[in-house]
């Protein structure tokens, strides 16, 4: 079974290697090879999951980097959590690669796209399977690189390049915290193996510091407040990339990291409060931003941020089960939403939902799949989102903080509202554009994902032992969240379909709120200020110091030497007789000193 795990990680790496060198010469420019290898990976991961469920956890390692006499180990730890994640990542990667056959057709650098997608998958699989934080960090960074390459895939566009840089740099901030956490962990515990760290005897204070640093990494990658700003911009990448980035990889990595380190985090209770708070703040702020966005991919991006906040909230209040369950169900319906959005953009050549309209009649399959995903996201039974969302709400309720529960409920309402705002505007409004349904190669993955979004709720039943604490289902919470979801849909329908009031009307009444939200709570401005003004000011000070102190200091020293040399130089006259005079006088002086001493010595004696 070890070899299965190794193989399922190495196969995508292999396809990266092959595609980046000889991709253009392979049939379908290498895409088929990549899909084939990914399919093998997927089946291997299914096998691994099956074996883990039957035989229990598996861990093995290899010597990786020699450091002095010890080796840093590259290890793999496969438990139920990571096995499920392996299946999820390979499955979604496979579906997205199939989808990209249609979406990216005729694209320049087509093979390169597939190569990087494969590398991306491989590094996410590495993060999932890694048994030590150090190895996880290695794969984690690799993923950061891939996200940079993919977001900036259309490198001819200035905005894409800027977005790629932004994504890379902002997540970098989180990664720095992650790395510091790992280093501190290594020096306090002496190992970065996840299993051994969690059983070690750390004081709550130290464990708390380490946990917060690790959580910093998760904040960066999972786009939590205040580092969420890279994610909306990351929409500049091709849509399949967004789908991949927002479901199974990258953003999932942060949540996965928290889930994986759960026992370490448990050593310090305050950490969970921080996680809860940040998750809550993120989910609420992002949900409000999603309500006012106009671009379809931006709406989905904010929705992703909001739901990641939800997962963090679940992890912070409830425990492993709620957050991870939502991670999985969210992966399905969010991938589906993005693939659907890809089809829509492909068909209408616009990103603005107000310019789409009337898609329902012309794109039946896409519309129904999108509807299923939207219902799932809004939290309507029997779709998967309902179950996972309810789980999180239940844990928020059980935490005993009313504020948290109420804000979480409001966020539920907002989610239902924004996604159906999108749906009603884009699909049901009248429009007489000529639009064709996407080709089967693109709809096929969506059908599978739609199917999974429907039955996703059953995961819970299938993996009940993994979800451990089976908190009792509170009927009141369930009804409340369902009611708010339906209310959200109703309000969206009322405003955008039946015309109770217009968006402009609301906008004119709540001008300042709209302004605040549309400017993304001025966070980008704040960062802009910090990076441009503050950093620029600091640079000016540095420049002044460099010019005035360092340059002038060095120059002054040089001048001193030069002037000194000029002054002393005439001593060397080159005339023999002057030297002789010097010798003569020096001799006289030395002799007179000598005599003075001997004579006084004689006198003294």
């Amino acid at each position, binding site marked *: 079974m070890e070899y299965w795990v190794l193989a399922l990680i190495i196969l995508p790496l292999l396809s990266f290697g092959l595609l980046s060198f000889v991709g253009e010469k392979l049939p379908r420019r290498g895409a088929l090879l990549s899909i084939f290898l990914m399919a093998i990976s997927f089946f291997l991961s299914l096998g691994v999951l099956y074996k883990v469920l039957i035989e229990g956890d598996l861990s093995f390692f290899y010597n990786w980097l020699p450091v002095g006499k010890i080796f840093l180990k590259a290890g793999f730890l496969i438990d139920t959590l990571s096995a499920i994640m392996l299946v999820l990542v390979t499955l979604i990667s496979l579906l997205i690669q199939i989808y990209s056959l249609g979406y990216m057709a005729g694209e320049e650098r087509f093979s390169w796209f597939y190569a990087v997608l494969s590398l991306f998958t491989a590094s996410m699989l590495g993060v999932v399977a890694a048994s030590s934080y150090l190895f996880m960090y290695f794969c984690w960074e690799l993923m950061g690189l891939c996200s940079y390459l993919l977001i900036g895939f259309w490198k001819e566009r200035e905005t894409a390049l800027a977005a790629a840089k932004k994504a890379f740099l902002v997540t970098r901030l989180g990664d720095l915290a992650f790395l510091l956490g790992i280093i501190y962990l290594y020096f306090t515990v002496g190992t970065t193996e996840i299993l051994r760290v969690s059983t070690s005897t750390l004081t709550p204070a130290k464990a708390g510091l380490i946990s917060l640093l690790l959580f910093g990494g998760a904040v960066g990658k999972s786009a939590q407040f205040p580092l969420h700003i890279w994610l909306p911009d990351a929409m500049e990448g091709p849509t399949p990339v967004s789908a991949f980035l927002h479901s199974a990889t990258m953003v999932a990595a942060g949540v996965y990291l928290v889930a994986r380190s759960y026992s370490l985090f448990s050593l310090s209770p305050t950490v969970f409060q921080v996680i809860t708070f940040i998750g809550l703040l993120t989910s609420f702020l992002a949900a409000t931003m999603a309500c006012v966005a106009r671009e379809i991919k931006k709406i989905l991006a904010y929705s992703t941020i909001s739901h990641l906040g939800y997962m963090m909230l679940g992890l912070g209040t409830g425990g492993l089960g709620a957050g991870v369950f939502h991670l999985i169900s969210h992966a399905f319906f969010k991938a589906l939403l993005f693939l659907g959005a890809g089809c829509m953009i492909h068909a209408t050549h616009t990103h603005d939902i107000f310019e789409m309209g009337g898609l329902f009649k012309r794109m039946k399959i896409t519309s129904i799949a999108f509807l299923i995903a939207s219902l799932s996201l809004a939290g309507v039974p029997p779709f998967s989102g309902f179950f996972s969302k309810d789980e999180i709400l239940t844990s928020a309720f059980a935490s005993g903080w009313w504020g948290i529960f109420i804000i979480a409920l409001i966020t539920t309402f907002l989610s239902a509202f924004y996604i159906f705002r999108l749906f009603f505007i884009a699909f049901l409004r009248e429009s007489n554009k000529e639009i064709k349904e996407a080709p089967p190669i693109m709809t096929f993955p969506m059908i599978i994902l739609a199917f999974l979004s429907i039955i996703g709720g059953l995961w819970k039943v299938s993996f009940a032992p993994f979800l451990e604490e089976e908190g009792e289902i509170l009927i009141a919470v369930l009804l409340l969240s369902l009611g708010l979801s339906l209310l959200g849909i109703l309000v969206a329908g009322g405003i955008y379909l039946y015309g109770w009031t217009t968006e402009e009307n609301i906008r004119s009444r709540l001008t300042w709120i709209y302004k605040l939200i549309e400017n993304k709570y001025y966070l980008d401005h704040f960062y802009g200020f910090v990076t441009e003004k503050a950093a620029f000011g600091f640079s000016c000070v540095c420049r002044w110091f460099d010019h005035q102190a360092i340059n002038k200091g060095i120059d002054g020293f040089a001048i001193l030497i030069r002037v000194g040399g000029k002054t002393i130089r*005439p001593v*060397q006259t*080159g*005339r023999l*007789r002057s030297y*002789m*005079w010097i010798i*003569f006088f020096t001799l006289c002086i030395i002799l007179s000193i000598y005599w003075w001493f001997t004579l006084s010595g004689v006198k003294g004696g």
Partner: protein
Amino acid sequence: MPLIYYLALSALLFSLGVFGVLTQRNAINVLISFEIMLNAVNLTLVAFSQFFQLLKGQIFVLFTIGVGAAEVAMALIIIFVIFKTFKTIDLDEIKLMRG
């Protein structure tokens, strides 16, 4: 004759030599002044040798005279080369080494 006479003469000659070295511009004259200083020292050695009735001093003086002769030969050759190079033996004119 008392020792002091020899030493006085020797000191006189030595001072004369120093004066010559310091004041003369002609390389030959400087060389002659050096020789006077050398011989003043020789005279001192011989005087002390006589005074202490030791032969070592006289033998040493014979050596210095021999080495001195060789030295003069070398010095004259150098002066000759200087003359060929600079067309002068005025020491003040030769200032290639001026800083």
